[in-house]
C-alpha cells in the first residue's frame, strides 16, 4: 500500500462508492440462524462501519449515496426492496437512522482509540434504533412503549453483536483507511 503520497480525490471517490456498494451488497446476504426465524442482516453493521472507518463526512456521503440509490428504486434495502415508498413504510425510520448513525459514529470515533470506537459504535446503533422507533411511532400512531417493544427489543441482541463486530473491525482496519485517506492517526 502506498502511504507516502496523498491522493485525496480519487481515493475518496473510491472509498465512498465502495462503502455504498458494501451497504447495498449487505442487503443481498442474510445469514440464516438456526435458532431464530429472523435472519441476521448485516446491512446496518456496514453502515456503522462506514462511519467508523471513513469518518463523519465520507461515511455520511457513502450512506446518503446508498439511500439515494434505494430511493431511486434499486433493490438495495434489506429484503431486496427499493423505492421511495420504503421511506414511508414501517422501516423508513431506520433508513433515516442509517445516515444519523453513520455520521454520529464517525464523529465520535475520530480519535481511533478503543474507547472512542466503542462509544461511537454504540451511539451509532442507538441512533439507528431510536430513529427506527420514532418512525414506527409516527407512521402508525402508536405509543412509545409499543414502538420500543416492536422496533427495538427484537433487534437488541443482534445489534449488540454487530456493534461489537464493527468496533473490532474498525480497530483493525482504521489505521489502514486513515493512511489511504492521507489522515494522520490521532493519538
Amino acid at each position: 500500500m502506498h502511504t507516502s503520497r496523498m491522493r485525496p480525490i480519487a481515493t475518496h471517490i473510491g472509498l465512498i462508492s465502495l462503502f455504498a456498494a458494501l451497504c447495498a451488497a449487505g442487503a443481498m446476504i442474510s445469514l440464516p440462524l438456526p435458532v431464530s426465524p429472523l435472519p441476521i442482516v448485516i446491512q446496518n453493521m456496514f453502515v456503522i462501519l462506514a462511519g467508523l472507518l471513513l469518518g463523519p463526512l465520507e461515511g455520511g456521503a457513502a450512506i446518503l449515496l446508498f439511500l439515494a440509490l434505494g430511493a431511486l428504486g434499486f433493490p438495495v434495502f434489506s429484503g431486496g426492496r427499493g423505492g421511495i415508498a420504503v421511506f414511508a413504510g414501517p422501516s423508513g425510520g431506520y433508513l433515516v437512522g442509517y445516515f444519523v448513525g453513520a455520521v454520529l459514529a464517525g464523529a465520535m470515533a475520530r480519535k481511533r482509540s478503543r474507547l472512542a470506537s466503542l462509544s461511537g459504535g454504540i451511539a451509532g446503533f442507538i441512533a439507528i434504533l431510536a430513529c427506527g422507533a420514532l418512525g414506527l411511532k409516527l407512521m402508525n400512531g402508536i405509543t412509545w412503549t409499543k414502538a420500543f417493544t416492536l422496533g427495538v427489543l427484537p433487534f437488541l441482541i443482534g445489534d449488540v453483536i454487530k456493534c461489537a463486530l464493527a468496533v473490532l473491525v474498525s480497530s483493525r482496519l482504521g489505521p489502514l483507511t486513515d493512511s489511504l485517506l492521507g489522515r494522520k492517526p490521532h493519538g
Partner: protein
Amino acid sequence: MKDLEFFRNISIGQYSSGDSLLHRLTPATKYLWLFALSIPGAVGGISGVAMVLLLALCAGRGAGIRPAFLLRGVKPALPFFVLAAFLQFLFGWPGDHSAALFTLGPLSATAREAAAVGMAVARTVALMVLLGVFTSITSEGEIAHGVEDLLDPLARLGLPVHRLALVVSATFRFIPVIAGELESIVKAQASRGADFGTGKGGPFARARAYLPLIVPVTVRALERAEVLAEAMEARCYTGKDRTRWVVYPKVRGEDAIRALALVFCAAAFAVDALLR
C-alpha cells in the same frame, strides 16, 4: 449450501435493452418523467395514483415490457404489506369513529384504517411499477450520466456534480463484485467448518466468530478502492472536469415530451382535486 446462496443474481436495475421511443429518450428526460410521476404517486389522492399506475403500465407496454413482469416485481414487498396492515389494525387511531369491519382478538379493522391500508398498498404498487419501467429502459450508465446532466446547472454553483456522477457509476460496478466476494468468502469459511450464529458465549465471543468473514470482505473492498484510485490517477484524473464524452442525442420532439411530464403532474393533481 442452499442457505448460502445469496441474491447476487438479482440484476440491479434489470435493464432490458430495446429500441423503442422510450429507450431512446435522453436520460435527463427519463429522470424528469420519473420525478413528475413520483410526486402524484407518493402524495396524490387515489385517482392521481391510479393515473400514475395506468400510465406506467402503458409506458411499459410501449417499451415492450410485459405488465406481468412489472407486477411480479411487487412480490418481494408483499410481506411488508401484511406487516403494515397488521400494525395498522393492531393500534387504532384515537378518535376514529368509523364503522368496524371485523374484529379478531386484539385486531380490529375500521373502515378508515382499511382505507388507509388500501391507499398505502396502491401507492407502493404504483411507485414500484413506475420504477420498474424506469430501470427497464435506463441502463446503469445512463442513470449515472442522467444525474450529471440534470445537476449540471448546479455545477456552476460549486456542487461537485461530476464527482457525484462518477461515484454513482462506480457504486453500480462494485455492487455485484462485492456481493460475489461476500458469497465466496462465506462459502469458503463454511466449508472449513465455520459456524455462523450458533456459537456460545457473550456478544464479543460470538462477534469474533464473524471476524473471519467481515475482515476479508472489508480488506478486499479497501484494496479495490485503492486500485480504482490508482487507475484514475494514472489517467490524470483531477476531479475537475467531466470524465465522459458521451452525448445523448435528443429524439424528435424531446422538449415537448419533457414539457408533457409537468403537464401530466399538474393534471394528476387537478383530477384529484376535482374528484374529491
